[in-house]
């Protein structure tokens, strides 16, 4: 009985999982096969495509740019998001809190295309040429809502009376922040910053509109794709995948460790 009733849902779940992960699995698989085309059967395994990808001088520049943007996003988004979130949670309730929360989450709902174009137009009006700086601003806008959301989830349980206790025991507002607030929310900030880095690494739309003639990994891959599917793209995609999964897992681990303590 249990088997029979469980069969249909199991098949359905199987289909969904295949639908979700098959394309990714195919890319990972073909990044290590010898065939230059996406075709079966698999003749042999190789890491040539990885070597090939890195031998492309555009690739190392693109990777450097991507990592630089990810780092800037992590630091700035982490700092802004933490401050914003702390302020929102400290408001306890009321309209101001709801308004600020909505405002900080809005960029997650606005289409990336709109953000990308608006920023491009905005920077042009300011007379700033397209480039990495403009892209960095875009990445921060895109990742901020997610930083605020993860921070909020953690800060809901933050005991604000500990800050009053510190003040009461003789700490100035700065000392209370240094000794109490920051050590307590540090894991949440790091977790949120890692998430911001992950979001920045695979950001394409906003980047494309603002980066000008520079390249990040996603922009480079898009350019390569226009010239036909090259297996080294599979290698790049796989690397990106590993990096992103690594960042997201690390982000979750950092947060979990703290809450179980």
């Amino acid at each position, binding site marked *: 009985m249990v088997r029979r009733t469980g069969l249909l849902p199991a098949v359905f779940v199987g289909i969904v999982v295949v639908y979700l992960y098959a394309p990714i699995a195919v890319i990972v698989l073909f990044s290590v096969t010898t065939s230059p085309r996406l075709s079966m059967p698999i003749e042999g395994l190789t890491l040539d495509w990885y070597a090939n990808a890195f031998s492309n001088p555009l690739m190392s520049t693109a990777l450097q740019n991507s990592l630089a943007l990810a780092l800037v996003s992590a630091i700035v988004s982490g700092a802004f998001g933490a401050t914003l979130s702390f302020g929102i949670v400290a408001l306890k309730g009321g309209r101001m809190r709801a308004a600020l929360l909505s405002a900080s989450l809005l960029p997650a709902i606005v289409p990336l295309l709109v953000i990308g174009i608006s920023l491009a137009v905005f920077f042009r009006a300011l007379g700033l040429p397209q480039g990495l700086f403009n892209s960095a601003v875009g990445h921060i806008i895109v990742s901020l809502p997610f930083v605020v959301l993860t921070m909020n989830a953690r800060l809901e349980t933050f005991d604000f009376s*500990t800050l*009053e*206790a*510190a003040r*009461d*025991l*003789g*700490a100035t507002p700065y000392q209370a922040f240094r000794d109490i607030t920051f050590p*307590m929310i540090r894991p949440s900030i790091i977790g949120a910053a890692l998430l911001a880095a992950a979001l920045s690494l695979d950001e394409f739309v906003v980047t494309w509109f603002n980066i000008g003639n520079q390249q990040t990994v996603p922009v480079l891959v898009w350019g390569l794709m226009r010239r036909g599917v090259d297996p080294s793209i599979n290698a790049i995609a796989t690397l990106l995948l590993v990096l992103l999964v690594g960042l997201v897992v690390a982000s979750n681990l950092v947060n979990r460790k703290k809450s179980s*303590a």
Partner: protein
Amino acid sequence: MGVSKLFGDTRALEHIDFRVEDGEFVSLLGASGCGKSTLLRILAGFERPTTGTVQIYQQDVTQWPPEKRPTNLVFQRGALFPHMTVRENIGYSLKLRRWTPSRIDARIEEMLALVRLDGLGDRAPSQLSGGQAQRVALARALASEPRVLLLDEPLSALDLKLRQQMQLELRAIQKRLGATFVFVTHDQTEALVMSDRIAIMNNGRIVQYGTPRDIYRRPNSVFVSDFVGATNLLSGVVGSIDGERIVLQTASGAFAAPKGTEQLRKGERAVLSLRPEAVRLHPGTGRTAEGSSVSGNIAEIIFQGNCVRIGTQILPDATIWAELRDDEADGLTPGDPVTLSWAESAAAVMKEEPQ
């Protein structure tokens, strides 16, 4: 010492003016929302009074931030720093005061011994029970030797047995240190057990300020007599006032009581308050020698373990409760005619309050 304050906050507190003597244990007692916590937070420096001043040892500290005040607060839920050990928690205020490490260590040991937590110094707050956490909070607040310790319902989250034990311990610690404690609570028993003086608060005002005995025996208002302990209330009209004695005419007879501090005039509506344990119960309807008496029929008998509460109907709409020892109630059943009596001095007459 003198904490004297006089101010009127929009709604939270109105015209509060009270003084705490050096080394006193004072409780602010009231129902939730009466302003007692606000008052405590004003003393601690977390809130500023709209008008009026706070003075501690003849020094006006109204505009001082919490970290400058010679007061420390024990929070309702401890508010221990979760990322620090018990020792680090207790030593935090001393580190801020730049004590030398060896002095800090010595003081921490002293504090741990005071709250009987020797050996638990290296634990994290999450490894402590509720009672232990509150002891650490107390030790942390006392470490820097504040002149005034403020306590915001620190025992309310503990279970009854532990709470009673902690009440006695807190009281003992306060007497040993000779420090001034201002303790906020909504639990009247707690306030009666621990305090030198109690300030009863209602609607942002202090309605009575006095020793626990005074407040229990001589409540100055219906609110206080009803809030502190159980009481019987009989309303009537002031019949006569002569010297120290006042007579109240009620629907069930005229009863005398000592004249309280309140100014009552002849013919004014007033209420007689009578504690259940002061009421004696005699089977039958005969008159008794003792002061005041009234007859009726037993309506209800409630067994409470250490005592029995008996409600006697003296009028269709009036019941007087008496509290007896269990064995004294043997043989009584509902419906029995009884006579209730009490000493004149056990009753109190006060103004009727508009409800």
